[in-house]
């Protein structure tokens, strides 16, 4: 498949201590798809995400993003973690501008920043996303002065400022209260509907996986002895009111059943 955005071919990953997390793992994601990855703790779902982000290197096999082998984080891939992703000594505004500042620091070298894509105006770009995510009144606050939900909005804004085509999220809303979580989930759907954003969300919540993932990857406890990985089609996901439909509940139950058999 030539037009895949993320492609793993027989990827194996083992930690330096010898623990094998993934073995001969293959997967293809198409541009614009919304993926959710779910599985028990320690199944390697975060590892999979870090591999796709270029933060880990596979010990075997090949990983292509946008047709290119990945040897370092790719400028057009955004990553959002559950916590600790923001610089505690920088204001919300400066945190959002961090990616732009790093690009300016290196210059367009094709390694850390794309060549031929002029750097957007720092102030106007940052202000746009501050407003868009409803955190403009917090521009001069530090991360420890704002709520968890506001911190995640800052992290999302920091990624979107860089105009990504892939958004990777590692349990991004796990530590938030239900209403904040739902607000941010709707925000992800909104952002997806606006552009060709491919999203991959790692979660331990069945409801979140079904709400945000049009394709749901279930990883068994030890993905190393594979064969067990299952992809569930959930193509009706993607609209904000999907949560209230009978399909949603049906798919949650189906996912729960499959998870129990893994």
């Amino acid at each position, binding site marked *: 498949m030539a037009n895949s955005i993320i492609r793993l071919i027989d990827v194996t990953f083992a930690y330096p201590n010898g623990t094998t997390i993934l073995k001969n793992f293959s997967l293809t994601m198409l541009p614009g798809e919304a993926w959710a990855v779910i599985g028990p703790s320690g199944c390697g779902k975060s590892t999979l995400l870090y591999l796709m982000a270029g933060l880990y290197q596979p010990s075997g096999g090949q990983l292509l993003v946008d047709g290119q082998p990945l040897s*370092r984080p790719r400028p057009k891939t955004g990553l959002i973690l559950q916590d600790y992703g923001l610089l505690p000594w920088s204001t919300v505004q400066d945190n959002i501008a961090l990616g732009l500042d*790093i690009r300016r620091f290196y210059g367009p070298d094709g390694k850390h920043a794309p060549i031929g894509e002029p750097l957007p105006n720092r102030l106007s770009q940052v202000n746009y996303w501050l407003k868009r995510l409803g955190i403009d009144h917090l521009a001069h606050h530090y991360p420890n002065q704002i709520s968890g939900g506001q911190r995640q909005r800052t992290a999302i804004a920091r990624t979107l400022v860089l105009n990504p085509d892939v958004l990777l999220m590692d349990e991004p809303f796990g530590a938030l209260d239900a209403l904040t979580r739902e607000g941010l989930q709707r925000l992800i759907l909104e952002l997806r509907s606006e552009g060709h954003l491919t999203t991959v969300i790692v979660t331990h919540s069945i409801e979140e996986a079904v709400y945000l993932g049009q394709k749901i990857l279930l990883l068994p406890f030890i993905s190393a002895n594979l064969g067990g990985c299952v992809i569930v089609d959930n193509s009706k996901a993607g609209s904000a009111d999907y949560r209230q439909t009978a399909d949603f509940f049906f798919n949650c139950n189906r996912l729960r059943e499959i998870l129990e058999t893994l």
Partner: protein
Amino acid sequence: MVMKWRDALFGLLATMVIWQLLAWIALIALPTPSVFPPPTEVLTVFFSLIFGELGWHFLVSAWRVIAAIAIAVVLAVPIGLALGQMPFLNRLFSPLIYIAYPIPKIVFLPIIMVLLGAKDASKIFIISLILFFQILVVVRDEATQLRPELIMSVRSIGAGRLALYRFVYLPATIPAVLTALRVSVGTAIAVLFFAESFATTSGLGYYILIEAWSTLRYPEMYAGVLAMSLLGLFLYFVIDGLEKWLTAWK
């Protein structure tokens, strides 16, 4: 601990009152009360000398200790960051640092003076050496304690090693560096006093011990003590101010 100006003023006033009381007690109790002159007498001498001879010694001492701080920071911060970031290097050097850290470096002053001479270089070197280890250890520990999630997320938006140093490690260690400096500025000045007490003809240590004390000019001696205290206070205020400014996020 950041002090308000009002508190500083009150502290100064309290010091003067206690000093005056002690001077009165000395007047009654001591056979030679001139050993403990009252603040008014010392302040008069201080202000008559600070724009001349004493001021010059003050500047010499200030230059030595500030140069030493600058050298220690410039050397210890990158080395501390490198050690904190590269577990291999840290494993290699940490036994050495563990042994060297508690050694009172001041005992090496005679050797340093043999090697570097009796001029500024030896004095600056000994103070730098002491501060170097203090800063090295806190910077190293701070760099090892940074959360891997933070590093990962900053790497994911394009930061390589260089940008990580510029945008993460360096700002993360600033509070630790300032704390180390605040704790060790007293030691630095004590060491300066000792280093200036022999084989030199300048600096407040020289002024206090050689020019004033050995010729029994007590008011001048106290003016020197006051100048040295003010040097310590000045550095402390600067570090305090930097801390207030640079660590507002805490």
